[in-house]
């Protein structure tokens, strides 16, 4: 039962996948992608947890090392920034799509495109 945090992150990831497949609105798909990112980040941080470990910072409270694994945290830091970049990019793309087709619903977009073709 100690693995519950893993299950939680997997379930969030599943929710993200479910969102991407089930949602028609493209913006909701982008949000689902962001949810997946978050889930993976939670999972990675959880992987580095050592029982009774502390935040990996030398300070007056923790002058001597009894830390959780800092490396996954560093990786997550990078992953978060990448996620932010993709989120920003995706939203601008959506602005473009909305301007071009007047909608973010793929069905409506397809209708307008087929008229054009």
């Amino acid at each position, binding site marked *: 039962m100690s693995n519950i945090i893993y299950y939680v992150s997997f379930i969030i990831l599943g929710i993200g996948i479910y969102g*991407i*497949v089930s949602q*028609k609105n*493209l913006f909701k*798909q982008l949000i689902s992608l962001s949810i997946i990112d978050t889930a993976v980040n939670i999972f990675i941080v959880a992987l580095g947890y050592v029982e009774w470990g502390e935040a990996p910072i030398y300070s007056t409270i923790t002058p001597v090392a009894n830390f959780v694994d800092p490396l996954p945290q560093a990786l997550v830091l990078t992953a978060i920034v990448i996620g932010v970049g993709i989120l920003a990019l995706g939203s601008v793309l959506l602005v473009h799509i909305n301007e071009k087709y007047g909608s973010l619903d793929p069905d409506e977009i397809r209708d307008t495109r087929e008229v054009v073709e």
Partner: protein
Amino acid sequence: MQSLLLYLAIGALVGYFLSMINKRLGPIVLLALSLYGLFTLWNMPIGSVEDLFGFEDILQFTALSKYFSIITLIVFSCYAFFNIVWISKAKRPYAFSALSILTLFGTLGVFLTPHLIALYIFWEVAVVASLFIVPMGKEESKKATIWYIVISSIGSYMFLYGTFLLYSKFGTFNLFEISGDIASEGTGFKWLVSLLLLGAGVAKSGIFPLHVWLRNVHGNAPDTFSAVLSGQLVKMGSYIIALFLGAFPIATMFSQFYAGVNIFSYVLIWLGNISILIGTFMAIKQNDMKMLMAYSTVANGGYILIGLALLDQVGFAGGLFHVINHALAATMIFLSFAAVVYRTGTTKIDEMGGLIFKMPVTFVTYLVGIISIAGIPPTSGFVSKWMIFQSLISKGMFVTAMFTFVGSIGSFLYVFRPLAGVFLGQLKRKDKDVKEAPMIMLLPMIILVALTILWGVFPQQVLVWVTDVQRQFGMEPFKFDGTVLYSNLGHWDSWTVFVMFMVGFIIAAVIYILMPKGKKIPLDDQYTSGEFLHNFDLYHYATKYYAFLEREYEGHPSFEDWYTSIVNVLKAIGKGVDYLVRRTASAYTFWMALVLALLLWVRW
């Protein structure tokens, strides 16, 4: 041989740039090169071996190489000669000349090497070079090019697959090294390899079921190039068939089936039968004279295949002999058509008529050509057909003999259609000012006529080449003595027959000259008693010429349609793929899950 190929490769470039100075220089380069090639290869001893560009012993000059190279070079020299004038009508003269030279390079290369990969390379060079000449023809020729490349690719990739199969078994690409060991392999392997290797030959020489490209390509290619296509490039396919049937010990590789013919040959013979049938009946139907001759090529490809597949003393020789006959005849006929089109600008039979009065030499060329195709003495066409018949009858293969016989009768019918429609009958009003083709065009046609009749009367020279081939492949050579040819059923003296024919011809000519001539009435008068006509062509008597025959097989299944519908099915699948592409990322995620599930389900 190496130097000849090198000259040809360089010649292609030289031809291109010289053409820019004067269009006519391109064909002249080709002519010079083919005459040079003819001279060299004629004198080359059989069995010489040479390197090519540093690859050792790639080129090998066999009797079969010699035979096919000489046919090729004759056809090409006549074609080049003819082109000197005709080139002014070509759409892209520079590229036309250069690519023609490249085609010659490719085909000669095919004949000169037993190394299967080198052969494939030369083969594809010839295909690509000719490929880009074809769309210079009529409007539909672009579509014809697709037929050409697809069917040709099917053939050549079958060949490539077979080549690599052999390589993986024997570790060499040299055909003659392989042929010694292949008999000991498993039956399935032998069938597969033989069928794959012959695939290229079948596709190229227009044998059923890969015959469909001929009508489009020969019919729509530039007029003179059709002569090369039918007279020469198709013979590349015959070469492949002859090479493999000769070099492989087919007789020991496959079990005997019927009358001393093994099962593999029997399959080929049936393909030949069907080709003859299809070619003949479809040719009867055609209104376009070039397409008509294209189907005739299919039928004659069938003859050659039957002859070669018989693999015996008489039949194999007959098949080889038929190659040269058909090459000459087809070249002659297509060149005369080119001359007609050069003057009248159309290929439709019912738009012409009575050109005998305006273009007598062209008419004679065509006449001799069709006589040879139909297999009437004293032309060489008779000799080869006689040999094939002899072999079939002596083996008791009466069904096949019947097919070939039907083909012969049919060829009388279809060759007569352009004869009557184009040359005989009455002159169209729009053709009043048509002149005979220029002298330079007539000369190669006359040379071809002379060769056909010469080899029809004195076939020794050709038979020497043919028997050389047979000897080299370890077959019993065909027996002949001067102009007398022997088979198990009897013999035949072409000189005697020629004399008898000449006597008959002279008698007929005398009667024709002495007899009173008929009176000429304009064509339309015959039908309408002088009424006004809206469409003259409908009343042209070449329209629906063989309606009584065509009615019998109207609505027949068409392989062209069948292949087109296969392509349509493929396109429908492609449309499905395209549909998937146009979905959103949601659908893609589904595919990702599917792949993931597959990866989990199929355990490592």
